[in-house]
């Protein structure tokens, strides 16, 4: 019995203040609202201007929520939130820091096709100069070139840079087919092995 009285005392001492937080969130000063903790990982959002369509996020996605597909002249990078685990792997992997985890979490939706269930980014594709097939985004080509130039051995820098410019705008098939005409055959790098 004494334990029960002790519990009763303890309960009554906090009696006037329930622990419950006010729902939904608001700003009235006399109430306690549910707080969003620092670093909460909510739904990921993609910056359309930064994304280059490189697929890095697709390869690391833990829930296989990200998919990338080309349709016509558009490349769509999509996160299907119904499969997303909010793990932020894509944020870490993205070379352009295009993905940011926001702290939005109230995303209950009534059906699978709801636009709120997907994070979509559409990117324009570059057409091949020769055959007209859309094959890659302009930004991906440029960024790859920049990064290549940062890291490459100075001895071959100029050659590679020239080759890159010659190849620019041709789809992989056309490059293979017209490699000799464009004078970019990889044979000429053979002498580098001795260096």
């Amino acid at each position, binding site marked *: 019995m004494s334990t029960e009285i002790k519990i009763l005392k303890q309960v009554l001492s906090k009696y006037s203040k*329930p*622990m*419950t*937080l006010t*729902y*939904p*969130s608001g700003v009235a000063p006399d109430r306690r609202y*549910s707080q969003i903790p620092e670093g*909460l990982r909510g*739904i990921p959002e993609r910056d359309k201007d930064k994304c280059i369509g490189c697929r890095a996020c697709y390869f690391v996605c*833990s*829930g*296989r*929520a990200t998919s990338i597909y080309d349709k016509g002249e558009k490349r769509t990078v999509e996160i*299907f*939130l*119904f*499969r*997303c*685990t*909010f*793990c932020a792997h894509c944020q870490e992997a993205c070379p352009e820091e295009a993905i940011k985890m926001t702290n939005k*979490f*109230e*995303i*209950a*939706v*009534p*059906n*699978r096709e709801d636009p709120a*269930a997907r994070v979509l980014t559409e990117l324009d594709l570059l057409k091949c100069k020769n055959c007209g097939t859309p094959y890659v985004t302009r930004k991906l080509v440029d960024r790859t070139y920049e990064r290549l130039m940062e890291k490459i051995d100075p001895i071959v820098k100029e050659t590679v840079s020239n080759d890159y410019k010659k190849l620019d705008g041709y789809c992989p098939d056309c490059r293979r087919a017209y490699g000799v005409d464009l004078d970019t055959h990889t044979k000429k790098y053979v002498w580098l092995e001795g260096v």
Partner: protein
Amino acid sequence: MGIMDKARIYSPWLYHLHCGGCNGCDIETLAALAPRFDVERFGVQLVPSPRHADILLTTGCVPKQFIPMVKRIYEQVPAPKVVVAVGSCACGGSLFYDDAPENYAILGHPDLLIPVDVYVPGCAPKPEAIINGVVQGILKLAEKRSKK
């Protein structure tokens, strides 16, 4: 709005159906029922039998062994009923399941068996997100009634 419709909105009873998953969502669901996020404020109660329920709250990715139980429990809930799928597992299978290659043990998501009305993605969703999903479920419940 008649008093019956009001009563329906005011007192939704939850039945918590756990099928597969890692239990993360179940813990968050219980957190939503516990003092800090107390849903009894809005008349929501956790009921022990599906026959008393209005809202079926499913979590997890439905192992194949569980298929008959899920169907049966869905059928045991009396008529105006709403299914709320909580967590990425219950919404789309998430980590545990992929379309190809087919998994020998896991069906994917309850959506393949029973009609789900509200999806709450998240792994695990915050209790507020679950409350939000339940509130949307309540609205659907009211709609279902008025259609009849």
